[in-house]
């Protein structure tokens, strides 16, 4: 850039900014600040608009079209995809399976997580070590962990069946029947998410002022009574938060199902069909993008409803 042109731009900029300042009735310094703010936000907003907000909107748009990747004609079908969804046994089965999965994983992992958090919240030796151990699976990648569990669940050589044989249990075909596959995936997933729930609940427990417990002790309450009368009510918002977040995550289950039940010997649809797997298969294997989008909209609505429930219930306690 030449000196003269730089000078020219500078004069032009000065005139422009003076004009903007007059129009907006703000000072030159304020204008410079605003410019800085918007430039600082520009990159993330650009990424956000193109790679998140737009796709979210387009999911709804696509769901109204018979949008097939290969076919040139992509006619508008209104609610046609949604009507098909109601007839689609794969989708309905997937929705049912995912719901069963979510109910079990959330219930078990929240109850166990709470029990562990209560035990760890006392002044105990080795608390940090226990916490760390319980938490490790949370941050681990899902694929290798699913591989590890797949081997544990192996019908013939798996160590779980060996342990069970000590108690006289006959070998179980964990990953060969849909019901047992569901049980296996639930066990694996509880193991994976438990530490997350525990950490959040533990933080909640530690934020309860000890004065409440002291007061309760003076009133003669002990153990279980303290837990029911003080801990549970005060912990309610966090328990609810954990339940909602776990449920949202559970509805997105995919990887462990893909790794553990999509073996070569299983049916092409897989042993255990879950919602995201159905979206994946319709969208990226059958290229029925419109139909897959309608399924994705259902998932979106589930997530939004869960979040709204959380906001609705939590509002009074936040105030």
């Amino acid at each position: 850039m030449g000196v003269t042109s730089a000078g020219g731009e500078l004069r032009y900029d000065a005139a422009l900014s003076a004009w903007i300042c007059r129009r907006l009735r703000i000072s030159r310094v304020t204008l410079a600040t605003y410019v800085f703010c918007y430039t600082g936000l520009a990159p993330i907003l650009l990424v956000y608009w193109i790679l998140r907000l737009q796709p979210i909107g387009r999911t709804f748009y696509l769901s109204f079209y018979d949008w097939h990747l290969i076919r040139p004609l992509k006619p508008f079908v209104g609610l046609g995809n949604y009507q098909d969804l109601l007839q689609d046994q794969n989708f309905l089965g997937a929705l049912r399976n995912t719901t069963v999965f979510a109910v079990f994983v959330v219930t078990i992992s929240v109850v166990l997580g709470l029990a562990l958090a209560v035990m760890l919240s006392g002044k105990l030796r080795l608390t940090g070590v226990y916490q760390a151990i319980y938490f490790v699976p949370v941050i681990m990648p899902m694929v290798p962990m699913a591989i590890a569990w797949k081997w544990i669940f192996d019908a013939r050589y798996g160590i779980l069946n060996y342990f069970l044989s000590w108690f006289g249990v006959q070998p179980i075909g964990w990953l060969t029947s849909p019901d047992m596959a569901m049980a296996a995936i639930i066990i694996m997933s509880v193991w994976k998410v438990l530490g997350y729930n525990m950490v959040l609940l533990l933080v909640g427990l530690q934020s309860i002022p000890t004065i409440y417990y002291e007061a309760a002790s003076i009133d003669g309450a002990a153990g279980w009574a303290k837990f029911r009368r003080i801990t549970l009510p005060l912990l309610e918002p966090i328990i609810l938060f954990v339940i909602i977040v776990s449920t949202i995550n559970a509805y997105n289950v995919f990887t462990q199902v893909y790794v553990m039940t999509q073996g070569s010997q299983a049916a092409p649809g897989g042993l255990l069909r879950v919602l995201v797997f159905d979206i994946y298969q319709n969208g990226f294997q059958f290229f029925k993008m419109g139909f897959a989008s309608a399924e994705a909209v259902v998932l979106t609505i589930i997530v939004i409803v869960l979040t709204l429930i959380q906001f609705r219930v939590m509002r009074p306690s936040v105030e």
Partner: protein
Amino acid sequence: MRGGPRLLFIHAFLAAWAIVMVFPFVWMLSTSVKPATEIIQFPPPLLPHVPTFANYVRAFQAAPFGRFLVNSLIVTFVSTMVVLVTSSMAGYVFGKYRFPGRTVIFLILLATAILPLETYMVPLYLTMRDWRWINTYQGLLAPYLMMSFGVFIMRQYFQSTFPDDLMDAARIDGASEWRIFTHVAVPTALSAMAAVGIFAAIQAWTAFIWPLIIASTQNMYTTEVGLAVFQKRYTADYGAITAGAIVSILPVTAIFLFFRRYITQGIAFTGFR
């Protein structure tokens, strides 16, 4: 008197549970160094009688595992860097400045944070296809260039911890807003940025469904996708698959060992999934 047995019971329970939690790792590690004959031995031996690294060698020979790891490292590194830049800039602006639209823009950024990638991956894939980003690094990276949670953490940090006085002092010295950000604000924010960076790295490293869709040829597979595909193809060779699985969790294990504090604090802070 009540405390003694009760405490013992609690410790027994916690310890037993710790064993359950650790067991899959131990079992995976043990399987990965077992010779083939011991892997399919029943009852399964807990530890290998004749430990061997043959499974690791086979894993790298049967699959381009080195390439998968490099792909994952590239995606994780770039994603972490971009997320750090976008989050700290946005967090700083939201935390320290008042400007028209501040609250609205912030709420919009956060509002969709709950929606998982799975709900909008179909149109995002079509965008990638229009841009010819399928089977490229850009394509693998696309959803991992921003993190609402990162913006939130950085905003909290700058708003509550970074003093206005430092900014005013720098202004008096004639520093521009940009210079204040890069030379005064960022150096104080390193620990908050470490927390954001760790989450960004874990998120990118553990991503599965997106790379599964985007990587169409083997040379673009990430470690996760490569593992998932090869465990299907070589169901019989569990030793090699397990060895690959062990290699793939090493980076995350290292992050956990060094930065555990940041991770649990970050989760406690926002409930990031």
